């Protein structure tokens, strides 16, 4: 059973990390990070060509992680694959024991960060559609065309499936953007995702706990029952925070955090110490994680270290989190 499901269902504080496959075929760096993450997190999201930048496909790295004893979370977007390709990958994933996935719409090839802008976007299914398709497969034992999956037992006379135990079952997740105007649209879509089968939700990176609390109030007011994991992005520098504020939708780093990073940079320059802002960024991430857990603001955290996955165990240590 999905390690993340087991943890969240048991009321434990869920912890997930995230990594991207390489733009190439050497997975060494990812596997080194995986070594450090083993036993420290309930799952590692493998991104699906995030920001529409070409990478090795996520399923490949998921298989490698699984073989290395780290629980992968297969991110699936509808940008590059139609429903057949998505379901096919889900079946292949299941064959390797990968049982946790996250459905996303996917960044458009021509969005600001995209690096293969001539690629044809697919979007046969959006995030809700992907979740519905997999839920329906699990419920019926049939593929996206209504045909029985192999291994399921079909009554030859009626065509009914009498035993659908060969159908894979996924712990399905989705994302949400808490900083969003009008919030009604995000809450409504969150409801649709949960109704479509999402059992856990990872949020876009949050930086202001007060606004996150307001978002959680909206979720509760709407009566949406799911496990919510707050997205944590450890900041590396004031410039990174400013860039994200200007360019990444749904990101809102407060000025006091930017000031703290800038002060760290100035101090580092004065004393000749390298990497002080990144250290401060890790401290701020750890402080948020500890507060989220202590104040029971939500069910867990999803740490997006954006290339600095090796720092995740340190951040968890600093936050006093052990799974």
């Amino acid at each position: 059973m999905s390690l993340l499901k087991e943890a969240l269902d048991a009321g434990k504080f869920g912890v997930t990390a995230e990594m991207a496959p390489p733009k190439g075929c050497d997975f060494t760096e990812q596997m080194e990070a995986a070594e450090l993450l083993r036993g420290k997190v309930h799952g590692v999201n493998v991104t699906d060509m995030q920001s529409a930048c070409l990478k090795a496909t996520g399923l490949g790295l998921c298989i490698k992680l699984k073989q290395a004893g780290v629980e992968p979370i297969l991110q699936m977007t509808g940008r590059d694959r139609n429903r057949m390709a998505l379901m096919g990958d889900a079946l292949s994933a299941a064959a390797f024991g990968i049982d946790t996935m996250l459905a996303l719409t996917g960044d458009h090839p021509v969005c600001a960060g995209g690096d293969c802008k001539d690629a044809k976007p697919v979007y046969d299914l959006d995030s809700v559609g992907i979740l519905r398709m997999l839920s329906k497969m699990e419920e019926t034992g049939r593929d996206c065309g209504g045909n029985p999956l192999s291994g399921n037992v079909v009554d030859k006379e009626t065509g009914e499936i009498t035993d659908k135990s060969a159908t894979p079952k996924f712990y399905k997740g989705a994302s949400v953007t808490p900083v969003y105007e009008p919030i009604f649209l995000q809450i409504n879509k969150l409801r649709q995702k949960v109704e479509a089968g999402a059992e856990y939700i990872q949020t876009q990176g949050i930086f202001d706990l007060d606004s996150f609390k307001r978002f959680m109030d909206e979720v509760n007011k709407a009566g949406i029952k799911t496990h919510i994991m707050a997205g944590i992005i450890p900041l590396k520098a004031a410039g990174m925070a400013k860039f994200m504020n200007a360019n990444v939708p749904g990101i809102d780093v407060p000025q006091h955090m930017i000031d703290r990073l800038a002060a760290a940079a100035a101090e580092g320059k004065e004393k000749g110490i390298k990497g002080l802002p990144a250290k401060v960024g890790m401290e701020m991430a750890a402080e948020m994680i500890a507060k989220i857990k202590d104040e029971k603001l939500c069910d867990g955290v999803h740490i997006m270290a954006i290339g600095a996955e090796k720092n995740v165990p340190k951040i968890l240590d600093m936050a006093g989190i052990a799974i």
Partner: protein
Amino acid sequence: MIITQKKPIEEVLALVEGAKTVALVGCNSCATACQTGGQPQIDELTKILEDAGKKVVATTICDYCCMNLGVKTKMKAINAANPDCVICMSCGDGVQCVAKNAGDKPVYPSNNTMYLGEAVKFGVWEESCRFCGDCVLGKTGGICPITQCAKSLMNGPCGGQKNGKCEVNPENPCAWIEIYKRLEATGEVEKITQVRESKGYGNFAYPRTISLRGKK
């Protein structure tokens, strides 16, 4: 209407490279409105071709280059002039219809066919419909999510908007925020909460034919 844009003239000249005599067929419908296939554009292209050493031996303007019967009649004079080739200055549909009626003469397009659009004001056309074959406008406040959302999302917005603008083209508003505002204004906001099934594409294998005669 079908929105067309002129091809770069070098591309058109390359198409007719081997021809000494050319005939031009304009279109009195969408391409005239788009200023890509009306009389002024025929005159303009005639001059360019003649400057390039070609002889324009016949020109005509069909009412609609996409209507076979009218095109058939107009093409009689063009074929009688026996040009080395024909340039059709309409949309891709018109080019194909003209080509069917051009006997053994090659027919070349002078335009690129862009989209089905609305003339929002003189000289400005916005894309408005992507021919999805299963209109959802009744549920989306008269704003098309298939066209106005860069990802054609059926179930509300992605997380990619910033200040109400689309991540794909920040000049465009987020379609789903517009749909929400419109449904609020018309007192139908509950429609946004309704389940919308993902579109199926099984009935849209092209090329398609619709016939009121029961057969093609």
